[in-house]
């Protein structure tokens, strides 16, 4: 009958053969010299070392010798890093970074604290990230720069900031950066990412867009070249900007006598007209009412 309880069969190793390593190890172990070294000399040497370690003078001498050897090895000319190559950044940034990092050189590659050097490189506002490597006795720094997205006017200063609102550099004049939209107002930098959405949404209105003004730390006003303002809601400013762009494309809205387009309530857009236009509208409305009365 077939057994119901499964028992592990005794392991039969057919045609067993020792591995080449096991074979060599056994042969090595059977070598008289190796055997004697392992069984007699090695324990004797270990005992002698242990006894010698107990004497303070020996211990200090051994430690000093170890430290000296280590130092001599680390400061061999093969391990000295003396050159510096900075890539991936504009000349100003590169020279600034090189000036800071160059102070640590020349040094042994064992003593170079690359994380700290990286910290030093990324401390620059213009530097987004830095990759440091040592090869061929040179320290190679691959920088990636922050790309400015806006000019931010705050008080008297003009600052270039990136889409996350971090400072990249100071700007001397607005005219030096004609391609970048202007942000104005307190707290504009911290909302830079939503400003970017608004700018993207402006579409056909983009040539007209002069600046985005932060109002009350919570919402944007888009100022157009004719001084007209598009008042955007705190939530979904990009969608509202799209609405404004559509209105302008269909109605030529901002070529008319409009000073404000108020989109703060998306359900109820308002426009504010110049004084003569308002009078015209009122007159037209009165005329319409009168005609209605006559009927």
């Amino acid at each position, binding site marked *: 009958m077939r057994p119901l309880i499964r028992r592990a069969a005794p392991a039969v190793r057919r*045609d*067993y*053969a*020792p591995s*080449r390593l*096991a*074979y*060599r190890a*056994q*042969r090595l172990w*059977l*070598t*008289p010299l190796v055997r004697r070294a392992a069984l007699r000399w090695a324990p004797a040497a270990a005992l002698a070392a242990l006894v010698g370690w107990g004497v303070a003078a020996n211990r200090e001498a051994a430690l000093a010798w170890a430290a000296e050897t280590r130092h001599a090895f680390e400061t061999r000319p093969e391990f000295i890093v003396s050159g510096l190559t900075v890539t991936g950044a504009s000349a100003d940034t590169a020279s600034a970074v090189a000036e800071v990092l160059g102070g640590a050189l020349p040094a042994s590659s064992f003593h170079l604290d690359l994380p700290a050097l990286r910290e030093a490189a990324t401390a620059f506002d213009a530097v987004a990230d830095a990759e440091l490597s040592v090869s061929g006795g040179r320290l190679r720094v691959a920088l990636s720069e922050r790309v400015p997205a806006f000019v931010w006017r705050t008080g008297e200063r003009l600052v270039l900031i990136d889409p996350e609102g971090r400072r990249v550099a100071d700007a001397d004049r607005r005219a030096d950066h004609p391609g970048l939209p202007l942000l104005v107002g307190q707290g504009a930098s911290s909302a830079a990412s939503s400003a970017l959405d608004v700018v993207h949404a402006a579409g056909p209105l983009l040539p007209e867009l002069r600046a985005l003004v932060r109002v009350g730390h919570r919402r944007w006003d888009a100022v157009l070249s004719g001084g007209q303002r598009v008042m955007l809601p705190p939530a979904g400013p990009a969608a509202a900007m799209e609405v404004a762009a559509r209105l302008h494309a269909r109605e030529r809205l901002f070529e008319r006598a409009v000073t404000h387009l108020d989109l703060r309530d998306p359900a109820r857009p308002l426009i504010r007209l110049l004084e003569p236009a308002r009078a015209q509208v009122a007159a037209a409305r009165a005329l319409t009412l009168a005609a209605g009365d006559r009927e």
Partner: protein
Amino acid sequence: MSDIYARQRQMRAVRRAALQRGYVAILDVGSSKIGCFVLRVDDAEPVGAGVGRMAGHGRVRVIGAAATRSRGVRLGEIAGMTEAERAIRTVVQSAQKMAGVRVDHVIASLSGGAPRSYGLSGEHVIEDGTVEEGDVAAVLSACEMPPLGEDRPVLHAHPVNFALDHRSGLADPRGQVGRRLTCDLHLVSAEGAALRNLASVVKRCDLELAGVVSAGYAAGLAALVEDEKELGAACVDMGGGATGISVFLRKHMIHADSIPLGGRHVTRDISQGLQIAEERAERIKCLQGGLQATGKDDREPIALGGGTGDWDRDSRQATRAELIGIVRPRVEEILEEVRAALDAAGFDHLPNQQVVLTGGGSEIPGMTTLAARVLGTQVRQGRPMRVRGAPETLSGPSFAALTGLGLFAAEPQDEWWDFEAAATTFPARSLRRAIQWMRSNW
């Protein structure tokens, strides 16, 4: 010629070094099993009451022994290098473990390789009247070399007989006075590829080859007693993949041959005839095999044990008579081949026509009777002489070649290359000339 000489002398030097260190391994690479002895070689022979000189056999003692099933060897030649290497590693490791020493030098046997045997004779005129070692070397070198064929190095070259003027049958002519020295040389060549494979597999096991011996010769050394070697006898080593033949006369091997047929063929016949696995066939052959069918054998069923997995229905049986009917023709074929080889060697002309069967194949019951019928002479089964320290399990007829290798290691036969080259090399000759010139002029 000279490179054979150099190679063999180099192996001889390795062997001397091994004997000086005191340890040497012997390795029988057979087709059915691979065996290894680790020998300790002492300088002094044991002496005691009633112990004579034991032809140097007392000097060796087996201190490590192991055998394993052979793999990677077919018809006595290496067929799978990795497999053979693994098998050799296995035996060498366990023999070393038993011995507790490391061996670096190994004497190996070659059972296949199609050995071919040649009888040569040479003649040399002695200048100063007394035979010296240089004259012996000269007469050996004067032997006319037969065409051995492409890539067939010399395995053995034994000086068999020396004759000085009209006196023949001299074992050692040195110091004797005469004028014309002639010698008979027995030369065995083998296939170079088989030898190189053997050397390669030994090298892959981190060992150094200290000699290659024809397995038939080694078996003859072990299985023949002194009288048989003296009077003339043939040793038939029936191995697994090859059957080795060596003919001895006056304590020298005078003929060697190998037939690529062996016990493995019998096993394969059983496996095919009874439709069973080869391992099962091997077991049935060893336990129930025979050569002489009797009436009782018809009534003796052998369970074949199937092995197909269908336990219920595959319970076939065969009678022992059927088994014998399979085994006998193949054994007869092998013996016929042996007979043909012995006839070709002129075995009939020997004064004594003893045939000694050894090797695993000789253990089939009824073998001596059948062999006597085919070979037509006195036949006996030869068990190898005991080497001191050899375990009982490794000293049956199957291990004749292994034991013979041990005896060979203890006291190797002088070979042609053991004599100093007779002024064949330029510096020696010029030096000798210079000395002669000095002698005659000063």
